[in-house]
């Protein structure tokens, strides 16, 4: 990594910006904007989950929404049954992580890679979508919660202060929580990547054969990375569910997985800040485009994706980093 700032300073800068946004934003914007920003953060977290497994683990997952959706649905179902939100919150992270571990083990121990991995992840997300989408019948219940099929699940208890089911989080508190979690996950992943585990994961991305010949069980490491990514996607799903107080099968949809890939590729592979920047930028653009009807949204996003692949194959943030450091040297 080359950049004008030293690595340490760069992370301090990210932390500072993060904290300023965390504390400052609720003071300067109105509630609707704050709600809008909360969803950006949720998406950033989702992007980060894919950015980690793809950019650092070398696993391109075409069905990351499977874990996002699983997190959202697990939370909704568990919250209806439990009421108090702490248990459901944890369960909705652990279950997608466990599911990712299982799926990952199946794929990596079967030595699937590249396109085949892409197809399987895509298909698994599709299966989940089709299944959940066809659970409108009243026989599909888990405890007190009806899965609801196409309707989705509305009106489940939203997150509350831990231990106190009677005090749900207000929109501004939701913002603090989401932003705080994003910062925590970012630095958590950062620390992980500096650890022995993380360095081996990166080594596997660089050269799987060599890592194996050095005695690292690539299958195990990849499965672990995939599970971590699944857990983070699940966390993003929980926040998403709480944001709208509504989940529907669309959370498993192809579009959800696809947008995440666009965020990551636009923001830049191999960095942690890239996916976050990509998600926020693209979502901001989507919102802007949503307010006019001359140019179609998908048209612009598609054009951006094509142009980024052709002209900025490394994505925004790494390219920016290179430009900065080149500027410095001159």
């Amino acid at each position, binding site marked *: 990594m080359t950049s004008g700032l030293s690595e340490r300073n760069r992370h301090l800068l990210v932390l500072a910006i993060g904290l300023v946004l965390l504390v400052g934003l609720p003071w300067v914007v109105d509630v609707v904007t704050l709600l809008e920003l909360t969803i950006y953060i949720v998406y950033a977290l989702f992007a980060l989950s894919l950015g980690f497994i793809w950019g650092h683990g070398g696993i391109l997952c075409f069905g990351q929404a499977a874990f996002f959706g699983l997190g959202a649905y697990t939370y909704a179902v568990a919250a209806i049954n439990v009421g108090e939100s702490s248990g459901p919150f944890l369960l909705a992270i652990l279950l997608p992580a466990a599911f990712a571990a299982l799926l990952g083990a199946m794929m990596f121990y079967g030595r699937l890679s590249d396109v085949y991995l892409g197809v399987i992840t895509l298909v698994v997300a599709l299966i989940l979508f089709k299944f959940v989408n066809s659970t409108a019948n009243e026989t599909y219940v888990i405890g007190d919660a009806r899965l609801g099929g196409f309707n989705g699940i509305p009106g489940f208890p939203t997150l509350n202060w831990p231990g106190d089911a009677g005090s749900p989080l207000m929109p501004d508190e939701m913002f603090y929580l989401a932003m705080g979690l994003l910062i925590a996950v970012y630095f958590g992943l950062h620390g992980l990547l500096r650890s022995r585990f993380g360095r081996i994961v990166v080594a596997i991305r660089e050269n799987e054969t060599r890592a194996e010949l050095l005695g690292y069980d690539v299958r195990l490491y990849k499965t672990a990375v995939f599970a971590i990514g699944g857990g983070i996607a699940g966390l993003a799903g929980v926040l998403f569910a709480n944001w709208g107080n*509504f989940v529907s099968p669309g959370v498993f949809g192809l579009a959800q997985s696809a947008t995440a890939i666009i965020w990551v590729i636009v923001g830049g592979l191999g960095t942690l800040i890239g996916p976050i920047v990509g998600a926020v930028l693209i979502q901001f653009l989507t919102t802007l485009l949503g307010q006019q009807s001359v140019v179609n949204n998908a048209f612009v996003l598609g054009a951006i994706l094509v142009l980024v692949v052709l002209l900025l194959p490394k994505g925004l943030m790494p390219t920016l980093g290179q430009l900065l450091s080149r500027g410095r040297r001159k």
Partner: protein
Amino acid sequence: MTLDRRTFLAGSAAASIAATIAGRAMAQGATIDVASIHDLSGIFDAYGKPMEKAMQLAIDEINAAGGLAGKQVKEISYDTQSQIPLYTQFGQQAALKDKVAVVMGGILSASREAIRPTLKRFNTLYFYNTQYEGGVCDRNIFCTGVAPSQSVEALIPYAMSRWGKKVYILAADYNYGQIISKWVQHYVKLNGGQTLQVDFFPLDVSDFGATIAKIQAAKPDFVVSALVGGAHMSFYRQWAAAGMKAKIPMASTTLGVGNEQIVLTKEEGDGILLAYNWSAEIDTPANKKFLAAWGKKFGADSVKEIHELAVATYQGMMLWAAAVKKAGTPDRMKVIEALETGMSIEGPGGKITVDPKTHHCTLDVVVIEVKDQKLTVVKQIPQVPPLDTQAVCDLKANPNSNIQYEIKI
């Protein structure tokens, strides 16, 4: 939800939340704002576009007559693009940002159930102007469309008397289809018939080849379709293409609601039986006036776009306007109380009266046969009450009720 907590939180966001929750601060702007939330694109746009036009027409007429409570009415329109999660999002915006007096909207029952909790939570009055499966019991919502005890109750005995007793049901796989198919089974049984099979289809299914073979194997006397949306349209095409029209007749609880009869050819649509509140052929002064006004505003060509849901939307808007006039204010509780006096208006579909106990409506029902791409009235039943919801819901006794009852069979 206890949302009146923590008002000490500083910051503008927190303050505005507090303001919203403390109750809708009235008399802010120079206009009374009304939100229209419909699918204006995507696979449900055939339903939504005319509903939006009906809103515009109703608001024009209200404003031309001097507005409400001394103010003009302004429409804020949202396109939910046939995506259910957008209902939640736009519902939030309408309630928190636009602070509208009422939300008119929702088409699919799934969209209603997505937006209903949001609007209830943020104390924003909600009108759902669509024929639906009935049973919603919530004081914050008024349902102005026909319900099963009005439409299915009329349709099934009429179809059975013409065709026979064995029925095969196809329904869209979400709450509407699931519940309406039970009502169909209920009325089939009540009239001494037999339901052979019920099949559900997700809204994106567009290949019905195997299903058509299955139906033939079951040999029903007729088919009841509760299919919904653009993709399901191909069922009628494939049915006709297989030459089934001559073999097994069909009734539907949904066809025509999106004016499908003019998209389908004569050969594909003719002979299908329906039952709704409205048909263009209803011969009343109110309907003629409505058709003329629509033609004048949107062009003569546009008159054929009018459908059941557009009429229900127009009637819903007019009901709300009448209530605001009566209450003298757009304040939510006052309007609800006014409506609960059992208000009625004369609409294109006949007289429509609010039932105070259920917030549903008593209205006229017409049984229709599709002929030459037109909805021909074959039978009229005046002033049918919403018996299905009345059987389970009493908002006078339980004003805090907030559920949708489902029929058990």
